């Protein structure tokens, strides 16, 4: 089995996955260990994400391999172990709803209740999830009479309410509107951070992945081309073509400043973050002082100045030195900066590069707007 170089993953993997399976001309040949948290499968259409997810859930029995979830072996072609899907306690949000047409939305949501008290969602969480997904008006309806997005929401709720040991979500938010996504994503973060529920997350949206993923698996033609911690891979230029240049960037580690540099800050709805590279200002105030967090900074949101700039609306200006200058055709170049111990990526025109006379080692100032650091780019760590 082709196990790609696996970059530093926590000692005891929450999920250890090795599977080879042929489907006609396609062959899934995937091996990875995932840290606790959200493992994102990322790859182009037809890469094998759903196939992998189904192998994990036991909906498909691989020709070869071994799958273990936090110690328990779910499948092993050697020993012939194959735990049937209904004993795996893996909740699955299917790419296509797969709701039960003969049951009302309510009964769809409560379907799993019948099976073992431990799994059944209690009233509280039922109300909570119905509210989260805006299903209240739909409870007595039949899936056949729901809109695409409504069906998707019911499917999500059904899986969440089954109180799974692991959650598989196959493009769960694809057909939902921005506002709804903005409501659901924090909830998923909650599952990840508070309950510590492991999630296998399939998505084409780098926004979702970069926000949720702990481990990222980049797939291509059934194989993992890269497996590793999300922040590492998301900052890896060699993967930018897969992500789309727009989203390329780095993750900054930081902590909310205990004592704000100036008192006006809070009133103006800003929070100061101490990073290895200096202070950054976020346009939000709901972060507890001292809390550590990860900031996603897109290369294209970073500007470079030769010296600190006065009278500019961009608040965040960090002293930096040019670490490296990427090459490649086109008008743009990625410039790697070092702000203290933090790497930053900036995407600028070659013209600016020339004008500013930037070269490795040269001191400069990295400028980024608070506006560019949206809510979705910030995630709490612990």
């Amino acid at each position: 089995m082709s196990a790609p170089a696996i970059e530093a993953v926590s000692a005891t993997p929450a999920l250890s996955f090795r599977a080879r399976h042929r489907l006609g001309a396609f062959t899934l040949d995937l091996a990875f260990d995932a840290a606790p948290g959200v493992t994102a499968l990322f790859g182009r259409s037809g890469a094998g994400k759903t196939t992998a997810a189904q192998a994990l859930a036991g909906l498909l029995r691989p020709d070869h391999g071994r799958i273990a979830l936090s110690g328990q072996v779910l499948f092993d072609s050697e020993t012939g172990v194959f735990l049937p899907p209904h004993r795996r306690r893996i909740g699955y949000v299917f790419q296509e709803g797969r709701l039960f047409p003969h049951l009302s939305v309510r009964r769809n949501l409560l379907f799993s209740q019948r099976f073992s008290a431990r799994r059944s969602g209690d009233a509280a969480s039922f109300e909570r999830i119905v509210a989260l997904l805006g299903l209240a008006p739909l409870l007595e309806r039949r899936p056949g009479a729901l809109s695409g997005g409504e069906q998707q929401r019911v499917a999500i709720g059904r899986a969440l309410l089954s109180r799974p040991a692991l959650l598989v979500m196959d493009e769960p938010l694809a057909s939902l509107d921005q506002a709804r996504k903005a409501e659901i994503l924090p909830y998923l973060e909650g599952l990840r951070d508070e309950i510590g529920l492991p999630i296998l997350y399939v998505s084409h949206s780098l926004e979702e992945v970069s926000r949720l993923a702990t481990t990222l698996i980049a797939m291509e033609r059934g194989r993992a081309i890269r497996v590793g911690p999300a922040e590492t891979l998301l900052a890896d230029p060699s993967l930018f073509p897969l992500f789309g240049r727009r989203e390329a960037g780095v993750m900054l580690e930081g902590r909310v400043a205990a004592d704000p540099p100036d008192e006006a800050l809070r009133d103006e709805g800003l929070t100061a973050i101490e990073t290895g590279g200096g202070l950054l200002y976020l346009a939000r105030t709901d972060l507890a002082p001292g809390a550590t967090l990860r900031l996603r900074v897109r290369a294209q949101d970073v500007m470079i100045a030769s010296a600190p700039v006065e009278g500019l609306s961009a608040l965040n200006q960090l002293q930096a030195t040019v670490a490296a200058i990427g090459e490649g055709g086109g008008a743009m170049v990625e410039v790697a900066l070092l702000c203290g111990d933090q790497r930053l990526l900036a995407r600028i025109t070659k013209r600016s590069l020339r004008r500013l006379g930037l070269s490795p080692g040269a001191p400069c100032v990295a400028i980024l707007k608070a506006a560019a650091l949206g809510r979705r780019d910030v995630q709490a760590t612990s």
Partner: protein
Amino acid sequence: MFEVTPEEWAAVRLSLIVSATATVASLPFGLAAALALARGRFWGKTLLNGLVHLPLILPPVVTGYLLLLAFGRQGPIGAFLEAQFGIVFAFRWTGAALAAAVMGFPLMVRAIRLSIEAVDPKLEQAAATLGAGRLARFGLVTAPMILPGLLAGAVLCFAKAMGEFGATITFVSAIPGETETLPAAIYSLAQTPGGDAQALRLTLISIALAMGALIVSEIAARRAQARIARR
């Protein structure tokens, strides 16, 4: 012409009891056979399939005769059942029910089987990921989905039972009040010159009854269909 003799009433009542019993009693077996044929992968599946269709292929008289050989007092199965459970088919209404059930079986199985084959296995997969085991999956997903097929199978079996005659009369003869079902009565009337009018009357009665069952089943089926209808 529409006064009905007690004997006729007896026949009507008997036919209803026999048909209902045959239908209800054969449903579980029909369901099992349909499942095996639709989903099963086992040796001798073709054989089972053939066996199920046999009553359709054989002339009813032959079926009846074979039943007599097997389930008669002297027949291996018949003797066994009588010895073990005191169940007797020969010349009893139970025998008529058995004959009717056997004759209706192929129809019932096919109807159920078709609707099983129409169920999307993906739904059962979904149920599995929600913790439903084999049985739960069947009971909570498959069964409700195939309800229309079950109803169709039941009504076919019932209708067939209401009309069945060749096998029944051969197996358990036509003992008034015990095994003389409507069709048997009709037949014997049709065999006697001048019995036509009476035969016609009984025929109309049996049609009315079967139609009733038919309409009920249709309504039930429409309900079930509507429940699983895609938008």
